């Protein structure tokens, strides 16, 4: 039996929210028994409504509805040394689903293919499911008194199709397939991209994998300490306490960057360039940061 999952390449996501809107398009106003019933409509307006009657003063309002697929923008660093990543987050369809544990009367079950379903009938009144999800993937439907979430489009999967977000994404950042088949496209990609779940420390064993999640970086620039002139092609070596090291060179703008670093540790940073005295500093990396201009001075100066 297949074990279905997703691979999301967050580093390629442009944050257009087509996946979000396609999901809303699928599930607002449409039931797919026995897997799901319609989620509440997203609504907006001005109060009191103006057209076609006059009003004296207006305020804007919006009811956002559910976000069975949502995106968040994570920005690391400070202007102007930044990384920005959009992270699409559906339900993680965990192998060890906390919502299933928190449910009673079989309200949450996992299909043989791994899709986790919140039964729209049996889950009636079980508001505890909302808080049970550490990923915030479960939403409460006030009108119907039921918890609801992403079904991995089980009704489409039954028809041999992929979930709607997969088809909708204009940059093809979401892949879908069988995690248990090592030759499937998704399994191959997960391996090649070193993909990982979000928050593995929750212990829920998600079946949604991510590549390119935002990670702490250390960046800087190499300059001539006397003139301020930018120096390209300087060698920059970063060393961690455990002996690992990374090497790069300053580019056309004299910039250098080390990505995917662990925070909460000391590093040493050494910059060398022919004809200049090497420069070495110690850096405590508490978060993604830019170390500024590393000034080099000529030998003998």
């Amino acid at each position, binding site marked *: 039996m297949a074990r279905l999952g997703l691979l999301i390449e967050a580093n390629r996501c442009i944050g257009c929210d087509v996946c979000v809107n396609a999901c809303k398009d699928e599930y607002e106003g449409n039931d797919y028994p026995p897997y799901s019933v319609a989620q509440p409509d997203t609504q907006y307006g001005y109060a009191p409504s103006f057209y076609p*009657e006059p009003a004296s003063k207006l305020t804007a309002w*919006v009811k956002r509805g559910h976000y069975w697929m949502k995106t968040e923008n994570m920005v690391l660093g400070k202007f*102007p040394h930044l990384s920005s990543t959009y992270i699409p987050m559906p339900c993680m369809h965990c192998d060890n689903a906390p919502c299933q544990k928190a449910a009673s009367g079989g309200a949450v079950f996992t299909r043989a293919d791994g899709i986790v379903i919140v039964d729209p009938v049996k889950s009636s009144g079980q508001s505890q499911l909302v808080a049970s999800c550490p990923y915030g993937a479960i939403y409460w439907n006030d009108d119907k008194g039921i918890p609801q979430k992403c079904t991995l489009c089980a009704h489409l999967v039954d028809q041999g199709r992929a979930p709607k977000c997969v088809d909708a994404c204009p940059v093809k950042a979401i892949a879908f397939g069988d995690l248990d088949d090592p030759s499937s496209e998704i399994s191959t990609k997960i391996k090649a991209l070193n993909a990982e779940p979000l928050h593995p420390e929750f212990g829920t064993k998600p079946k949604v994998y991510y590549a390119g999640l935002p990670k702490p970086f250390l960046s800087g620039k190499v300059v001539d300490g006397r003139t301020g002139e*930018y120096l390209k092609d300087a060698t920059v070596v970063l060393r961690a306490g455990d002996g690992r090291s990374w090497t790069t060179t300053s580019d056309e703008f004299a910039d250098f960057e080390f990505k995917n670093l662990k925070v909460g540790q000391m590093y040493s940073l050494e910059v060398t360039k022919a004809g200049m005295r090497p420069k070495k500093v110690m850096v405590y990396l508490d978060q993604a940061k830019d170390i500024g201009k590393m000034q080099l001075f000529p030998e003998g100066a």
Partner: protein
Amino acid sequence: MISLSITRRTFVKAVGALAAMLAVSSKTNLLIKRRPAVAQTEETLLTCAADGGPFLAHVVEGRWVKSSPLKPNLTVAANAYIARGRAYSSDRIRYPMKRVDFDPSGSRNTQNRGKSGFIRITWDEALDLVANEFRRIKDTYGPGSACHVYMPHQWIGTLHSIGGVSMFYPPYESQSGWLSRFFALYGGCTTLVGGNSFPAHQAGGPLAWGMQGHTNINNFADVLQNSGLVIHWATDSAIKSYNTYRQNIALRQLKEKGVRQVVIDAFFNDTAAIYADKWIPVFPNTDEAMMVAIAYVWFTESLIDENFARSHTFGYDDFKSYVLGTADGIPKTPEWASKICRIDAEEIKCLAREWAAKPTFIIDSAGGANRRTNGIQWVRLVIALQAISGNIGRPGGGVCSIELTTRPSTMKSFGSIPGMKASIVNMIFHVYFRDAVLNPPVTWTSVGTDGKIYTYTYPKAGTPEIHLMAFSGGSGFTMNQNPGVPRHIEALQSPKIEFAYCQSPWWETAAKYSDVVLPVRYIGERDDIVQYDNLAVYMHTVGEPVPDARTDLDIYTAIAQRLGFGDQFTGGKTPAEWLSTLYSAGSVPMSLEEFKTAGYYEFPYPTQTPTVRLTGFHDDPDNNKLNTQSGKVEIYSTRVKDAFGADSPYVLAKYVPPIEGTSSPQYQTYPMLMLSPHPKIGRHSQWQNVAWVRAYEQMFRDGYRTVYMNPIDAEARGVKDRDIVRVFNARGAIVCSAYVTERIMPGVLYVWEGGWYQPEVPGDRQSIDIGGNTNVLIDPRPGELTHGMIANTLVEVEKWSG
């Protein structure tokens, strides 16, 4: 495994209380109630298309319930799923309506436009009223007193695109489609002209190289194969393309090949975040200072071929003298530029050296830094610097507007409805609408597509002023998308505009300020055909959210009939016959009936071989002249000198300080520079009335449009993320939600354009705009040469408590 028979049945069951679409108390409002569910029903799949691309509409019992791709994995652009939200928007006009206090044979109460309510009238009453006004205005003043607003961004379809009458780029007249036929037969009209989109490309391009500023001279295959550096200049290429899918494939190919990409923008935009190797945040409107400093580096470090530069440009020595400071005593060094641009001098030097060393391709978007009074200088300098560095007419060097990939030519076009030549009695430059109505005459200059400088006056001697506004195909141009919105409202509320009507699917801005509104059918509510990317698509009727709505074509036909030229207008053909004619101009290899059943046809997408234009000019400029006065790339413009004098700052392509910037007097009071880029979801004001877009937190929070602010600026004003704030200057004020982020430069604000103007007190143009329309804050004064003033707007921002 739970197995479900794979059928197309949708089991729609009533579950508890069904949510109403909109909780509004008015008894006359536009509620579109969800129908109570019924037992198992068949679902039909029908092809359709919106301007976001083609899709399959799922129809249950005559109602469009959701959309999916034409086929799995076929997605062309980002907005296709939102079309249904537009169709069923709570803003639909349900039936013909008339302002309660508008009486065409009594008091018109024009001052109440935007304030008074509306009552329902019948179609016959409405059409009679509109036709009578057209007849009366023409008999009283002449046909030029009817003012038509041409809106280029109409939603799609070949039969139902109504076209228009315009002098968008003088002297070139664009007369197309149903509207040109109507006004030709009516006897003529006045039309609004001028564009917000690429005014500087339109003015600067012909001056610089004899064609539009953003003309693609390479194709993407050439860029991928031969460019060493791609500069995205004041543009977010990844998200602003009409074809998101193909555009991002192209950007990814560049990145994977290792072509260096630099983004220049005050905002760490998505292209910078995902694809670029380098982001240079330049203070907006100062790019030309950096550009002339780049030239300074080229000259002083001998990085360019001077013989080539001299033989391919006109005005090289004047330019060099300006850059080196021999002319004015101010050498345009990187140090000089760095203070103006707010970046290190060394950054400018590095860019200069890399640009000179590699075949460089520049995406100088038809948008971005062109939309300001001195944008013309930016466009001219991009072309001048590309010419000087040898990047015109050689592999890998060139410019483009934003679309990296172009539509293939294997598919023959369906063409369009044949227009007729309407007499354009007068033109009104759109930003001058208020002055044209309230304080005529107005005079303005414009650079034509031929590079010549034209002067226009409204109204021309012996011609009438306008007294009737005909809004169709989108009111954006005059009312919502026109810099200085409250001023134009003032004109529209004047008794000089005796009659205003609006035909539209939605209660857009112009509809709210009209006397009569007519509901129009949107896509999916009438059959049509369209071409998109490499697809020909049949657009089925998939639902009827507003049964009383009619097509623009039907409306104009009915008015034409009442005015006595109905048969000429339709050419004696029914809409179905026209559809057949349009279809047969194309090359889809099947009958129209077969095409309707098939739904779409996919043409082969040809592989591109690298192509570069202007290679003749590059290799032998004297015998392959450009369409300029000198035949060369003109850095110095004799035409500008002849028109405005040798002292005009625009004679030379050089840095001219922004008309509203740090040295302006108002900078002391309004020290924040506001940019208003294209909305991330939507096309200008389109799509902004869909609930999902109103809930998209990059653009809207808590119902208000976002304003991006750097934490330094926010903290200085006691503003926190998600606070409701007021963005204001002497021209007006708008309400926004503060989006505090490191991604935007200090001193700069970012508010997505396209907000639907909505004064807090409806119809009161002094009251604050809760729709967040940036045009409330923008000075509509144009420059002599460029008519896009948008990006040079100074404002202040503070917390707002209501």
